[in-house]
């Protein structure tokens, strides 16, 4: 528990209403997108960089640890409170400071919701490509910290590729600026890059300079329906071989088709083995030829239906299923475990096979949503977290999935991060010398291990 002196000082820094210490209030900050939870001593919500600095310096003096938090939507346990910590909640630092589309730059505070930035950019004919499925809730600070992906990565890359610079408060309370408003990797080392995806273990992002790009002139959205998942993965391979770079190649299997249909009635065929959402963008004169090629490829792969969306409403209808995929499975079982394994694209069919095998071997229900172009799969294991025996089986199945992905030359995390959930598997992906490199980086930024300790790697 925090002493009254500490509470008073925190209130002095951020204001009376921006310090939470009561049990009910703290509960909202005790969990994230995983099943884990933890109890913080308090939650503070600063509004300026100066307040962040003061909080860091004061809590260092008090020997209290800090855990940064955005909207808490992460799937890795990265924002779960640790022992003897205060949560630094960035929700109030939610101002878009500048949008300069002529120079392709926007400057935001870390608590800005991804979607809110998109809305403002759209008015000016621009957008910010990384849009993880959580984009209506997740913050940009969180997106940077997790290096979020989303459905457009095959063509446009991940969050890392759109962060030009950061203002960053180090664990000792000092401020640094990394990068700038251009592509140069300053200063000396590309510190922006090591901060991207660092899951809040190196300090606090207080300002983000993002790259924005003009909205594509044309987009075409297509939906292909297959009897078998294998045929969908063949389509993905053939599209890439044809030299086409779609923005999106999203796959859902039969289980997800049915759960999303129950939820949003988008009109997908309930008996289909898989659907593939394919989207391309670019100049109008380049569209027809690509759509034709893609149509032929799906036909060759025995697609039972290939549809090109003819209206914005149809596009939304196609995307509605995908956007609600994770939540929709809750109708089947009360809990689900999201996995984030990624394999080289050529091994995608083998990964699908591997998932089916794991499901059978452990007797668990697994639905698959995948960013197929990226080889990034989200097998959702459905279960009931109140059943301790089942939870054990689910954990074993998750471990088997990670092992399978690594065996196929892949990674245990494509876009969700390591946090607490995957920490135990990290050394099966990385050599000891690489694990030591991570520790060296953490120790350089945070020699006293004060910020978000115990996440990603133990030091």
């Amino acid at each position, binding site marked *: 528990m925090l002493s009254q002196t500490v509470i008073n000082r925190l209130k002095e820094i951020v204001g009376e209403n921006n310090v939470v210490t009561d049990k009910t209030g703290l509960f909202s900050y005790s969990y994230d997108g995983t099943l884990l939870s933890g109890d913080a001593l308090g939650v503070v919500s600063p509004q300026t960089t100066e307040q962040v600095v003061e909080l860091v310096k004061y809590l260092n003096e008090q020997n209290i640890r800090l855990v940064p938090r955005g909207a808490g939507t992460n799937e890795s346990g990265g924002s779960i409170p640790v022992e003897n910590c205060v949560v630094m909640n960035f929700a109030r630092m939610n101002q878009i400071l500048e949008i*300069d589309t*002529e120079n392709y730059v926007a400057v935001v505070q870390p608590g800005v919701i991804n979607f809110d930035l998109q809305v403002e950019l759209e008015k000016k004919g621009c957008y910010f490509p990384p849009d993880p499925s959580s984009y209506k809730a997740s913050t940009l600070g969180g997106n940077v910290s997790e290096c979020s992906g989303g459905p457009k990565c095959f063509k446009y890359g991940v969050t890392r590729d759109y962060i030009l610079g950061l203002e960053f408060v180090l664990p000792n309370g000092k401020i640094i600026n990394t990068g700038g408003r251009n592509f140069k990797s300053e200063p*000396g080392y*590309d510190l922006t*890059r090591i901060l991207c995806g660092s899951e809040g273990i190196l300090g606090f992002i207080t300002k983000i300079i993002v790259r924005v790009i003009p909205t594509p002139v044309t987009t075409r959205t297509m939906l292909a329906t297959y009897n078998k998942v294998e045929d969908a993965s063949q389509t993905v391979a053939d599209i890439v071989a044809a*030299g086409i770079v779609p923005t999106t190649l999203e796959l859902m299997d039969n289980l997800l088709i049915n759960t999303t249909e129950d939820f949003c009635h988008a009109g997908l065929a309930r008996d289909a083995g898989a659907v593939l959402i394919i989207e391309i963008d670019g100049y109008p004169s380049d569209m027809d030829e690509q759509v034709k090629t893609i149509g032929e490829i799906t036909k060759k792969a025995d697609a039972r239906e290939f549809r090109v969306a003819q209206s914005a409403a149809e596009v939304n209808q196609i995307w509605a299923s995908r956007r609600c995929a994770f939540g929709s499975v809750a109708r089947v079982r009360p809990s689900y475990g999201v996995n984030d394994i990624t394999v080289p694209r050529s091994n995608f069919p083998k990964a699908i096979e591997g998932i089916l095998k794991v499901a059978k071997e452990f007797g668990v229900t697994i639905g698959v949503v995948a960013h197929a172009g990226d080889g*990034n799969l989200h097998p959702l294991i459905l279960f009931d977290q109140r059943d301790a025996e089942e939870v054990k089986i689910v954990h074993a199945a998750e471990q088997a999935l990670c092992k399978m992905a690594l065996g196929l030359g892949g990674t245990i995390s494509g876009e969700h991060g390591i946090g607490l959930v995957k920490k135990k598997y990290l050394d099966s992906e990385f050599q000891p010398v690489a694990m030591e*490199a991570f520790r060296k980086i953490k120790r*350089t930024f945070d020699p006293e291990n004060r910020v978000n300790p115990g996440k990603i790697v133990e030091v």
Partner: protein
Amino acid sequence: MSNAIISKLKGIVGDPNVIDNPSEMAKYLKGTGKPAAVVLPGNASEVSGVVALANEENIKISVGGQVADTRDLGEGIVLIMARMNKIIEMDHQNLVAVVEPGMTHQEFIKQVEAAGLYFPPEPYAVDTSSIGGCFAIGDADSQTFKYGPTRTFLLGFEMVQPTGEIMEIGNKCIKNVSGLDFIHLAVGSKGTLGIFTKLLVKLLPMPAVKKAVVARFASLHMANATFNTIIKRNIQPDRINLISESLVKDVLPGQGHLALIDLKGFVQSSQNLANEIAAVFSLGGGTDVQIIDDDAAYENVINAWLKARQAVNHKPEQVIEFAVGPKKMPQALTQLEGIVGDLGACPGVVVEGLLGFARVLLPENADMTASAQKINKMAMSLGGNVTGLLGCQLKCEAYNDAEMWSATTEIINGLRHKFDPKGIINPGVSL
């Protein structure tokens, strides 16, 4: 250096691969230093052996693909990666290649294109750059707007750490957030975090067509004004470059400053855009406006750009680079003229239009520090800055923020020291 150490080096890489005769060493050296030996390793374990020995004996190492800098090296070792120059794998399905660092950048591009694939980053110095150096420098080049900076193309590597251990990291997945992103921190670290011995490189499908639109302009300002028109018309080509006559005259004959726009993509849209750009050039006062479709002519003009880029990159001590964003470049060039005098008479100016970068080559006797301060002040007034660590320092000075500067250097030097506690690798590199 003692004979005992030379023979240990020979034991590691083989007799013919250790050169300690000054006249034979010369072709591998840049700068005036006199290292004790040039060593040409053949694989990662040999590199590791040399680095481990250097740590034991406290000898410094300078690394390069074809040539290496001898600054602050003393009687150290020059490690030349030129023998490690093979493509180990070309994977069409996953659009990746595995390549050794000593292959020249141009040779890599050639082989990738022969395989029907595409690698966008440009060589830093077209005649000598190696692919390892490409990632060690980690530049943002003219094509960055469309394809991303160099780092975008590195998915993983094998590296010998400054303490000698071999590390393999990364995989063929284009999405990978596992662990901390050491992979991309290493890009641009100029060898100080380790020596690449194998690179896992991301590639793209080959675009259907390559085209260039070129024009000559009597004034840099006029040329740059057309760039703003192009951007305003919502055209984002692969590159928009402006090269001053002084830099281009030896590599591509013609009168005036060269504006060069590069288009890669689909047949129809590329043709439409090329016509539109050519019209903008003509209306904006360009002469000799040409749309270049022919492969050989295209290669020729791109090569001229690469030679000009090399000429600038070879004189880092005379170059000041700043970034202000594309839209503010016309203002910046006008104000720059107030600082350095007539831009047309300047030894060299390069503008990367889409990115809003400019590089100015100043006369040999120019006061670089004073110019950099003035140019930074100008750039800051337009929302930009002089790039690199120098820019960071100047910004901190301008804000009178010594604490930020010390916090920044503490992190950078701290990282370097953690990875290279004895300061063995590339002592001449100041980050």
